[in-house]
């Protein structure tokens, strides 16, 4: 009796546990896009993530900050120390106060955070018709659907269907909740020229930047999964041993 009940518990509990996630937003089905990090054993495609950083730097970073990331983090994407230092030194960051009490600008170092395009949220709103370009540091964790949603959003711009009246300065997007998004279509064909010869299609750019943003949100993903596999194997063996010990101890009772 208790076995079936336990099974039923697990089943019902598992089904119901998804309810909080399902509760948010009107249901717009997000198509599943195949990514290198899908599944239990997926890892980040480094080349794709590096291209994604290029897309972020040349396109997204004009409005969107990623204040939780530092340039040194890019080493995890396979960039060398020299490349990271070169990327960091291209930006001017504010430092100080110096001995005279003045703030001053200096070239960035690998230990600096990604420079934000606007000094604060109010300035960001003012420059974008009142819409706040969200910080992208953990955006892949902060949206239902994660990277799939980001890919769908970036490739989901279209003309509004007949009968839909768009608000002032709004754009139609098939996957944005409510379909009206303040951000204009950010990606156009060949907007970014990739050094490795990957064609600059919207789909390629969207996939690469989604990969980059997923990495930015969960840099620990590969280490986490690798450790998880080892621990579950260990626990499975230990479980077998513990069961054998239990059987042995109880052998003279049953």
């Amino acid at each position: 009796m208790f076995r079936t009940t336990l099974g039923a518990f697990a089943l019902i509990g598992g089904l119901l546990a998804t309810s909080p996630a399902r509760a948010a937003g009107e249901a717009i089905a997000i198509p599943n896009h195949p990514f290198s990090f899908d599944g239990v054993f997926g890892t980040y495609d480094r080349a794709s993530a590096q291209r994604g950083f290029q897309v972020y730097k040349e396109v997204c970073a004009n409005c969107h900050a990623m204040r939780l990331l530092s340039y040194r983090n890019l080493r995890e994407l396979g960039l060398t120390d020299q490349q990271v230092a070169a990327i960091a030194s291209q930006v001017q960051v504010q430092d100080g106060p110096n001995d005279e009490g003045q703030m001053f600008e200096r070239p960035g170092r690998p230990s600096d955070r990604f420079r934000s395009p606007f000094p604060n949220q109010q300035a960001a709103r003012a420059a974008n018709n009142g819409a706040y370009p969200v910080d992208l540091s953990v955006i892949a964790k902060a949206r239902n659907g994660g990277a799939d949603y980001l890919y769908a959003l970036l490739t989901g711009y279209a003309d509004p269907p007949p009968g839909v009246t768009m608000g002032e300065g709004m754009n139609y997007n098939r996957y944005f909740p409510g379909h009206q998004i303040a951000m204009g279509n950010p990606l156009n064909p060949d907007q970014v020229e990739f050094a490795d010869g990957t064609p600059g299609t919207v789909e390629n750019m969207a996939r690469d930047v989604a990969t980059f943003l997923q990495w930015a949100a969960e840099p620990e993903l590969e280490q986490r999964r690798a450790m998880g596999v080892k621990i579950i194997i260990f626990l499975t063996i230990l479980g077998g041993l513990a069961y054998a010990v239990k059987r042995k101890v109880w052998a003279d009772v049953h």
Partner: protein
Amino acid sequence: MAIGLHDSDFKNPVIRWVDQRMPIFTMMQKEYGTFPTPRNFNYFWNFGALAMVNLMIMIATGIFLAMHYTPHTSYAFDSVERIMRDVNFGWLIRYVHMNGASMFFIVVFIHIWRGMYYGSYKAPRELLWMLGVVIFLLMMATAFMGYVLPWGQMSFWGATVITNLFSAFPFVGDWIVTLLWGGFSVDNPTLNRFFSLHYLLPFVIVGVVFLHVVALHITGSNNPLGVEPKGPQDTLPFHPYYTAKDSFGLVIYFIVFAGFVFFAPNFLGHPDNYIPADPLVTPAHIVPEWYFLPFYAILRAVPDKLGGVLLMFGSILVLFVLPWLDGSPVRSMRFRPVARIAFLLWTVCFFVLMYCGGMPAEEPYVTVSRIATAYYFGYFLVILPLLARLEKPLPLPESIARAVLGGGGPMPAGAAAKPMDKA
């Protein structure tokens, strides 16, 4: 009792020296070694031990997280992400703590369910049961305040909604809410005191767990038959029989736990909590963590503010008087054919409420919540008291040993002596 050294049975000179002066080894031997435990536990009896281990995991990971966390509205969100990114194994410790809360509630829900199914709350275990309800309430308070600490959107708005519940009370409501906030909205003072209390309450839980175990070791454990052990043939020493069985259950629990932590760490969470708290923008749908959903559904099922709050608190407080609502002398539902069905239906209602709590407050969920809420309370307040008078229970086995070893029927005298033969 004479004053002087304790008469210790231990041979090791160091252990003996300590034990004579402070008999903790004798106590451990008595309470966890030879402690006579009913021989017929099923795996539902693992969950008390699992809850104890879970509590220790939460305290250990929490202490290490607190070394890196900053309880300030400007830094809380970033300090949590710093734990995830820069602190060595910070992601592991945080995900264990975060999913550990969910595991704790899974374990404790099953533990409570087991107590209700097998009638563990009945005399003489009423106080044991009530201490358990106190632990459950403390857990909910701790979990609620812990969820506020990352200072994401759900943290902030969850805190706003839940603290506002208290404003439903007439006359003193607003005063209480201001007191909880330390200001005029959920803000830095609120975050600071929640952090302080979130650190304190687990140790209060440890204290009540100790009392829970003390009470347990006076009355002894209930068992799946609900029949008290009548003699040594009905019991086994806790060690090695139940230490071995609990160890196996513990490993299975760790496998489930690890599955969440390493492969679906955010499955039970909400994406909105990775958006930093913004007092100007409320998320489209505020939902509490999954373990609060049944109670949240009861709150929303009532169209009246105060009524909803009272019913929500009442849904847990009713557990305190459960031992007196259920007057049937038969403990285990195995021998209560009608109550068994009524209780399983109550279980279904609990899950239905959990589902509705996660859905938007619109039809059909509101009506379904109301029906389920009515049954939730009806079970406690009407069905159980009535069944105590009307239900005709099945015949109880004479003893545990007879039911376990004799297959229920009459058995030869030799069978009862079987464990002694083995000894």
